[in-house]
């Protein structure tokens, strides 16, 4: 009975997840965002995510790799790097 409405609901959740993927969010962040902004039950989000992952293994595999690479650099390191960039560029501009 809930046949097509559940299908469209799931489709909607997929849509939202994809939006989160564009933001490079992790699964957890995505679950939280959907829960907060759209009242989607976390378990639904995570289930749809998992199923999407199954259907799109390569995509998610690469996505995960990217995510982990990002996480490798901590915020501290990022800050230091940016600091360096700024000081480098201010040196450069001293002509």
């Amino acid at each position: 009975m809930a046949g097509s409405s559940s299908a469209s609901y799931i489709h909607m959740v997929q849509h939202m997840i994809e939006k989160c993927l564009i933001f490079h969010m992790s699964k957890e962040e995505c679950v939280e965002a959907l829960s907060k902004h759209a009242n989607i039950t976390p378990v639904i989000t995570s289930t749809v995510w998992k199923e999407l992952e199954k259907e799109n293994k390569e995509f998610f595999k690469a996505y995960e790799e990217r995510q982990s690479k990002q996480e490798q650099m901590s915020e501290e390191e990022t800050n230091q790097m940016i600091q360096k960039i700024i000081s480098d560029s201010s040196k450069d501009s001293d002509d």
Partner: protein
Amino acid sequence: MTAAMESQEFLLTSCEFITDPEEKGFLDFTEHGDLLDIIDFDDLFGVAGDVLPDLEMDPEILAGELSDHVNAASTITTTSSSEKTDSQGETNKKGIWRKGEEVVSKRDHNKTHVVVNYDRKRKYSSSASSKNKGIRNNELPKPKVKCVKKVDWTPELHRRFVDAVEKLGVEKAVPSRILDLMGVHCLTRHNVASHLQKYRSHRRHLLAREAEAANWTRKRHIYGLDSTGANNKNGWLAPAPTLPPPATVPSPPVNHHHFRPLHVWGHPMVDQSVIPHVWHKHLPSPLWVSETPYWPIIHNGTTPYFPTVATKFRAPVAGIQAPPPHHMVYNYKSDLGFGGTRPVVDLHPSKESVDAAIGDVLTRPWLPLPLGLKPPAVDGVMTELQRHGISEVPPAASCA
């Protein structure tokens, strides 16, 4: 032979022949004296008998045009019966023209039949079709197209259109040339022109979106991952607003080779083989965004391969729906200085942008999926949910 020369000239002048020197295997009519010897009709039509390609011509056009050009040996008769003396026993309903003697045209019962009896002097009213003969029919299936007023832009037809446009260059493509390159019967220049217009405006739209997405993801890289440093001498703070307004996205000619055919409304993507190797190239070149994969390139060269992303587009408009403008996206704390204080960057998207994106889905659910990932089976999802105690979706109670 005068007759042959005449017919040759006739065809050349009356059919808007455009000789494309790049065309391989193009019959060079100017060199051969006898047109008839060149054309291998078996080759052309691929059938045992003498059957001309399927062409359904509007009887009025046919009658009008042929009357001028057909010599005394030809006769035009109209019948309203659907006789078919086709020795092949073809059962299709299109007009069939025979080379040489008897000609049968089979049409719908209601329509007037035009039976044309002609010798080899014939004129095709479609300029594209002449060029098509003898060259392409070996490779392509005979396009079973009807010459009706409204063109049905099937995926196949559209694909040919896109091929032709890309060969010519999107901005430079001219309908008459596109028509020639497509080699399709019964497409008028007008059809092509209007389709081209739609195609171009659709492309601009997509490019604008992709540009935004690319720009955003690029900046994210610069802030976080680009160890060679930003190009920006004014400090990392000002991500260069390099995006040109959507209507004027330039297309550097060299990049045309890498142009990934943008998916067009209503049609599934075809020909995915081009896509994978396109990923690596451009960063940073924010302007030429059609090369941009949907996911930013990792600088150490291990580019993720996303075949599923590209191939799964079933949505009508396969553009990335980019996150809102960059200033909304990043959370950055305000005590930024040049060289003094320590800037802190939160690489997470801002709440507003996420909220906006999600809200977009809620308010406009008909919008196409930004990535077009392959959707999971509904049953699978439902089963899984039931295991977690959720039996209906959307659940009756609101979530925690």
